[in-house]
């Protein structure tokens, strides 16, 4: 199954949850197809073919 993680194509073995994609989710936010997935829902949100996933965290900034 092919998805895009932070703009890069990624091959996943099959349907996986957001939780499996981001095992250490401290300080991280995830959006799937432009919608934020709350951390509480990571373990029950399954990724699908062609999903565009954004994984972001804090960087230095002004």
């Amino acid at each position: 199954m092919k998805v895009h993680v932070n703009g890069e194509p990624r091959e996943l073995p099959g349907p996986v949850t957001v939780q499996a994609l981001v095992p250490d989710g401290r300080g991280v936010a995830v959006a799937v197809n432009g919608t934020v997935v709350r951390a509480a829902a990571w373990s029950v949100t399954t990724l699908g073919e062609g999903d565009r996933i954004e994984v972001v965290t804090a960087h230095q900034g002004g």
Partner: protein
Amino acid sequence: MQIAGEQLASRLWVGTGGLPSLAAVRAVVAAAEPGLVTVSMRRTSDTGEGSLLDTLRATGVPLLPNTAGCRTAREAVFTAELAREALGTSWVKLEVIGDETTLLPDVVELVEAAETLVRQGFTVLPYTTADPVVALRLVDVGCAAVMPLGSPIGSGRGIADPHAIEAVRAAVDVPVVLDAGIGTASEAAQALELGCDAVLVATAVTRAEDPVGMAGAMRLAVEAGALARQAGRIPRRTAARASSPTRGRVAL
């Protein structure tokens, strides 16, 4: 000072962008003793930037995520939502930039984004032009503070139009935080003297020859500016006015 009922420990806020290492971030924050530290939200990679969060959390200073780089209200709202989820704060320094050359705010998109985020329960601190009319619009839609620019981001040109900053101060009843353009400590002090409640500096510190030294200078400057504002400056006069008494002078 207080924003949205929260007490902040200092009127100096610092950005971390431009520092070469996490050790430098730690040292600058220690020297500045800021009330808030700003961060941006970017895609994760394997460069270990996750530890930036650990570094900043260890300082105990509250974090203020920004929406830097966003060009539309929609992008900025999305970025704020991600920041709230990642950092567990509903505060956001809202930036919507009109173009890459000037990095000036697109105030139309800004007001729209602010309104949406306030409705979603965010505490919105918008980076805006030094324009009292726009500032009022932002307060009207529920912003907790306004952050007018002194001069363009990273330009170090100081407060280009002090009267505009005073006009913003006079127009709104929320805290005014001078954001962008500060180049050195005297300009940070001036912002407070003009009536701003706080100052956010990033480039002025992070790209100074000695960032830690400049961070300390900014801390003292902001304190001095606030004290001067409170003390009340003398009016400007056209003519000189002697401070020594004229009576009792010796005769020759």
